[in-house]
């Protein structure tokens, strides 16, 4: 049977301390893979390798039975989409930021931006529609983190790579985001890989399995 998303022996050394990460994992449609491990173990590096922002030294990523090398990086990143821990907002209003991927990417320019989805996502994670005309640079950390997640969902990727999506959020916002992720992943062929330090995040996510990243030392 063809695996939906699978990575095998993905390896990368860190120049600073001679350590390395080598991990394998798999996630099925509708499921969530939570990536855990101590600080500096390479959890974010693993996500960036999966997003093809960092080149692994060895290993393989398979997506719908296809090797990653058979898919162009630009197309890959819209389908296997990475959301950084620190939200990046560009000059312009919040709505302009939501529409930005559809403007800068020739791959997404064929897709239709869904205003309906935008309003629905805003409502689900407690951001008022009036905020759409607000300068994105004036958003608080928590608002920007939620906005970055909405922007990612509007791109309609199939795999979401989330690095600490609730790091900037308080109780209610955190619960709303976890709820949105559970709803999103349950629809069609979608999966999430999420790095999180918070036990409550992982316990509240549905259909979650855990990958614990271990730090390797050179020579081992």
């Amino acid at each position, binding site marked *: 049977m063809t695996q939906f998303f699978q990575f095998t022996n993905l390896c990368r050394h860190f120049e600073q301390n001679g350590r390395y990460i080598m991990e394998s994992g798999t996630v099925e449609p509708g499921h969530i893979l939570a990536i855990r491990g101590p600080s500096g173990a390479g959890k974010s590096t693993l996500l960036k390798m999966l997003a093809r*922002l960092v080149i692994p030294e060895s290993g393989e990523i398979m997506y719908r039975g296809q090797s990653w090398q058979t898919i162009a*990086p*630009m197309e890959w990143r*819209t389908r296997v989409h990475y959301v*950084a821990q*620190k939200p*990046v907002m560009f000059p312009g209003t919040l709505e302009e930021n939501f529409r930005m991927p559809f403007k800068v*990417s*020739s791959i997404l320019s064929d897709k239709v931006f869904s205003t309906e989805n935008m309003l629905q996502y805003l409502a689900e994670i407690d951001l008022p529609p009036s905020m759409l005309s607000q300068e994105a640079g004036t958003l608080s950390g928590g608002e920007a983190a939620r906005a970055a997640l909405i922007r990612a969902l509007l*791109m309609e990727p199939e795999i979401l790579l989330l690095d600490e999506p609730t790091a900037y959020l308080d109780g209610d916002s955190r619960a709303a985001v976890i709820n949105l992720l559970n709803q999103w992943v349950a629809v069609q062929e979608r999966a999430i890989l999420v790095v999180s330090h918070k036990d409550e995040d992982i316990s509240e996510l549905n259909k979650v399995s855990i990958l614990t990243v271990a730090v390797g030392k050179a020579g081992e």
Partner: protein
Amino acid sequence: MNNYTYIPISNLQLAFSVLLVLITGLISALLKLGLLKSLIWGTIRAFVQLTLIGYVLTYIFALNNLIVIAMVILFMCFVASREATRRVKNVPHHTGILSFLSLSASTFVVGLIVVIVIISPQPWYSPQVVIPIFGMLLGNSMNAIALSLDRMYSEVHSHIDEVEQLLCFGATPWESVLNYIKNAVAAGMTPTINSLMVVGLVSLPGMMTGQILAGMNPQSAVRYQFIVMVMIAASVAIGCLLIVGLSYKKMFNEEMALVDEIRKN
């Protein structure tokens, strides 16, 4: 009617000008700036270099040989390209060749247009025209390219998160750094555009001053100066565009992601 002829400078007059260095040296010594050694060394180097180039130019002018002139200009391009990239920080690769290509292309395209089409000396490669024109183009393009490169790398370094976010939107490397490339080209061109604005009001350019001192009618000197300024602007624009266009790709790897040398800083 202009009866002015240039006043030759005798050896004694030249030696006397060295006294001016004493003023600079005195200020350096009084304020303990620690520049005295550099000042003396700089003065000696300037004198020796200019004397040598005087003899070299006299020899090249007498030869009047196209191949020799072309070799001299290529050598100037080589030196200028090294200088342009030497002080640029955060460069993850050797930009020397790209700098040489950018400088040579911009200088030759604009220089040949100016020499052949506009000034039209006889023969067209007359070294008295070609070498000073190409020299001025190179000097200005060299500084502009250095500014553009420095700006491009510093902008991308300080916006790594933004560039990677744009890549995640499905943007190509070019699309992901386009704003920073525009800023870099503008940074390289700004000093030239500024000098177009103030020329004649704030400053009298060196070339024009030199021609006037050498006895040329100011109105004729002004015509030359105008041509020089617009040709410099054109050469600078082409050079900046070429250097960022050629070198931005070096910031990305075969996966169309930022190279480690950029990411880890």
